[in-house]
């Protein structure tokens, strides 16, 4: 017996909106970063599932997933480097302390 495609899509949609919610509400830069990773991973699931169930004769979706994983790894590396730099400057990584610039 095979799972229906909808189950995967429900999970990926929940992940997407959990990510958006986390991005807006989290107060720690690392938690914000994790929320973004949730969004990117939900996209990966979507691509893999669409490819496997709807268009199994081509590999476009799988390749897109591979590239998206690679790029999100780069992005995490750069983001963490910048977060470390912030830590060196102000000794914590809370979002509320990143308020030197205000209108």
């Amino acid at each position, binding site marked *: 017996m095979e799972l229906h495609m909808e189950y995967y899509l429900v999970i990926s949609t929940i992940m997407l909106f959990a990510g958006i919610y986390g991005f807006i509400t989290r107060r720690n830069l690392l938690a914000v970063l994790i929320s973004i990773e949730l969004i990117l991973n939900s996209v990966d699931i979507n691509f893999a599932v*669409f490819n496997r169930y*709807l268009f199994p004769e081509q590999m476009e979706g799988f390749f897109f997933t591979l*590239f998206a994983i690679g*790029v999100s790894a780069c*992005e995490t590396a750069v983001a963490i480097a910048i977060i470390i730099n912030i830590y060196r400057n102000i000794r914590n990584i809370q979002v509320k302390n990143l308020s030197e610039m205000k209108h």
Partner: protein
Amino acid sequence: MVYANFLLMKEEVSLVAVIVILLVYDIFGSQKSLKYFQPIACVLVGIHTLLNLSPNIEITAFGGMYHNVPMGSVMKTILNIGTLLVFMQANNWLASERTIIRRGEFYMITLATLLGMYFMISAGNFLMFFIGLETASIPMATLAAFDKYKQKSAEAGAKYILTAVFASGLSLYGISLIYGTTGTLYFEDIPAGITGSPIQLMAFVFFFVGLGFKLSLVPFHQWTPDVYEGAPTSVTAYLSVISKGSAAFVLMAILYKVFAPLVYEWQSILYWVIIATITLANLFALRQQNLKRFFAYSSISQAGYIMLGVISGTAMGMTGLVYYVLVYMLSNLAAFGVIAIVEHRSGKITIDDYNGLYCTNPRLSFVMMITLFSLAGIPPFAGFFSKFFIFAAAAQQGYYVLVFIALVNTIVSLYYYLRVVKAMFINKSEIPIESFRSDGYTRISLLACSAGILGVGVLSIVYESIGTFSFGM
């Protein structure tokens, strides 16, 4: 795989060559010879610009992944010129004590983002577009955080990378839904599969949000002022002009090409986004004191004007958009050149600090004045013509109300642009910025920008020659 395909992508190949030469030079050059890093980088980018001056014919390589149109080549040339001008202005800041050791990295990372924009412009597939987008935005965050010891700079970097990746994540979600409903990622095949079903509309909205962040259109503009203020001034100049210009071009290309069947939907979305962008950004710009923040809001509203070229959806709109980007680039780079040199010499950055600048630095004030006049759209300068063409393109399609709102906003923007001019020429100051001589490179770049602002509008050949390349996509 056919390796001869690489030869077709001559713009990308020559840019990669420039990056590799600079990398080797930065690693193996002796401390003494590294003094000449800036001139060499400028000369190499100049050669690269000249080599690719003649627009390519339409090229398709790698089975449709890479698809370049003549207008894309024109856009790349404009971006090259902008990058060259930024390089000429950057040295004052880079030669300071704390950044001199990382001087080479600035040039290489900047060129890497430029390479990403090239791929974005000539993508023929969403995978290519996505990789280009990320190549353009991830290194940009490291540039924004380049001043390692300044908290503001690190803050700007963090804000930029988090919002940029959030936006591209949303964009990707949209792309995944498009893939799910059409079964392809090639720009050429997608329109046939687009039926306007609700899920495709949702996909389009997600996708549009992603590029809207990059362009800083209004509901997605929150990061712009903070990043522009915190990043080093040369990086801000690059970010406000090159990054925005390429994103505008790509948005237009994709809306025309891929989402052509949804034209009524995206025009109605864009309609309200343009009104919100121009109006809100203008209102916020009125109350800024910091010049970099001021120009951030100004650039948001300019992005709204640029979108007027997209909404018209005609060849005239496309020509108008590219021409507008060219003029906006010259004006903004001149303004940031002046801000950068004043900030470097005196550390002053607010509008009140510019009181009485005319008495001490008449030439800089003059450059700043024609820049601001051009941004506001006052006739003899190029900004007037670019606004005229883009308004005409939108009005031709019957968007009279939209053009009227944009016109009213032009008047509002005149008020805040003139505020800076008034500070420089009329206000008196007890402690004006003392008089100084800027270095040769900055002077040449400011001169080039001023000549462009004065010349590009009057010489109709510029607009006409851009016009001959429109619509090959």
